[in-house]
């Protein structure tokens, strides 16, 4: 802790008014709209409440057992994982490569960066709708014109086409963002290392392999987890682009939970699915903390 700020043990009675003024509204809001929903979700996951009836029973871990045996849940989970892996790898490779090329001396760097970042500002369902136009019209016409079958296929009618469509859209949206973060990571590496390497006659490839990449480990970990988080929580683009078509094969976990809770009115069952997903996310952020603290290296 900072030495300058004196650490007091208790709240002084005369200060209570100020506490209420400075953190009271925030904590009230946060409890009502975040903590309370979180706690009650965990509670409901152990009941059989359907969201409508005034009464419910506590049924223990039955909802969890049902979720574990629910095939659609695992199919959507597997879809999310597969989707995340592809998005994370591809968008990070592209983002890093752009940042690396843009770190050389190129005129109008900031202009190019802004252009590449631009897709990031589009979000929500609009992102999916924009791309639905591109896939179903532009891609198809391009495919017939150029003779490349892959482009002119019937988009969103086969599981593969829906999957790749989602991967393409998410990569399009994320790569520019990751580029910006890689950029700042690259800029933070001291010029001295590169100068020393040039004096020693190291090739560009060696410099990249033994100076840039090791020193960029912290940034890389961060970028990987940003991409993982975005990909795992996919919802808006999912409903607007594929809407699960065909036959719920392109449905991510979030869509599955939403459908369980609100389409078929099984609030408690949906809550159990959510809690399971929170556990997965906590494991992810815990491993992120572990990896980040280990990877903040300096030469």
């Amino acid at each position: 802790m900072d030495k300058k700020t004196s650490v007091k043990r208790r709240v002084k009675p005369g200060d209570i008014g100020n506490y209420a003024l400075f953190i009271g509204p925030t904590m009230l809001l946060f409890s009502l709209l975040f903590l309370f929903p979180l706690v009650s979700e965990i509670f409901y996951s152990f009941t059989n409440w359907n969201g409508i009836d005034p009464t419910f029973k506590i049924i223990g871990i039955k909802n969890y057992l049902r979720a574990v045996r629910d095939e659609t849940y695992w199919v959507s989970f597997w879809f999310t994982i597969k989707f995340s892996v592809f998005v994370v790898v591809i968008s990070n490779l592209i983002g890093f490569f752009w940042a690396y090329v843009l770190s050389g001396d190129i005129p109008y760097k900031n202009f190019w960066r802004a252009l590449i970042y631009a897709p990031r500002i589009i979000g929500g369902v609009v992102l999916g709708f924009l791309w639905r136009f591109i896939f179903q019209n532009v891609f198809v016409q391009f495919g017939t014109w150029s003779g490349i079958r892959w482009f002119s296929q019937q988009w969103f009618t086969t599981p593969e086409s829906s999957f790749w469509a989602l991967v393409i859209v998410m990569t399009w949206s994320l790569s520019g963002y990751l580029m910006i973060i890689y950029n700042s990571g690259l800029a933070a590496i001291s010029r001295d290392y590169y100068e020393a390497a040039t004096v020693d006659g190291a090739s560009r490839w060696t410099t990249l392999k033994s100076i840039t990449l090791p020193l960029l480990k912290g940034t890389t970990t961060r970028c990987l987890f940003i991409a993982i988080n975005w990909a795992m929580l996919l919802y808006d683009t999912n409903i607007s682009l594929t809407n699960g078509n065909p036959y719920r094969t392109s449905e991510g976990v979030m869509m599955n939970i939403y459908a369980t809770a609100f389409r078929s009115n099984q609030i408690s069952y949906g809550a159990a699915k959510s809690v399971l997903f929170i556990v997965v996310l906590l494991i992810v952020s815990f491993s992120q903390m572990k990896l980040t603290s280990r990877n903040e290296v300096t030469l």
Partner: protein
Amino acid sequence: MKRNKRIRTSLALVFIVFSCTLVLIPLYFTVLNSFKPYPEIAANIAALPREATLNNIKEAWTRLNYPLVLLNTLIVTVFSAIGTVILSGMTGYWLARHQNRFTRLCYVLILCGMSVPFQCIMITFARMIGLLNLGNRYLGVIMSNWTFSLPMSVFLVTGAVKSLPVEIEESAVIDGCSPINLYWRIVFPLTKGTMFTIVSLEVLKYWNNYLMTQFILTKPQRRTIQIAMMSLFNEAMFSWDVAVAAVTLSVLPLFIFFVIAQKQVLSSATVGAVKG
């Protein structure tokens, strides 16, 4: 040596220009086809409009109820941003400067929000909105936006306040300055940079928020752009010429914002990356 370098630079430049084209081409097609009647879109999607028409835009404008929808989105975004600055600023300041068991607990609880995203608690959140009678009220979305912006913004403010020298505040306290004056007169101006970062980071999220908003604002008069787009695409009378014009209309305000605040948005993207 020098010639070699020039070749490399021009190669890199070619690559970057190619990448930018690839990245921006979907946007180009979207905007271009908004001005073409459907037969022309179907005939050749890449061709320039033979007779540029504003009919698609007009139709999308009325079907989305664009002015109203834009106003709703603007109201939500602006008030969400103002509230986030006030709440996270005061809270972050207090948590950084008055450390004891209670404030630590508050800080840890708020940071928990970083690992449990909105999507995970949406089921009971939707119920809470009903219980608090916030349905179809701007305030419902605005308050929810405040709540889910808190973890990130409190974290940033606390960091910024801790890096300020505490002596200024101490001398102000000796001069008899009350905490609320102290914060707004002295600390807030010094953390303005962080506030700009928070705003440009969160504004795009507010604007693009769909999942949370659809739980709260369901009445047609209260629709935001995202909700209006969803219902337009769900309508039976669906045609691509109007739809693509609607997409153009809905991304246009964002691009105006991006062009104006481009530097701020790009630099805040890096700061925001701590959240992961």
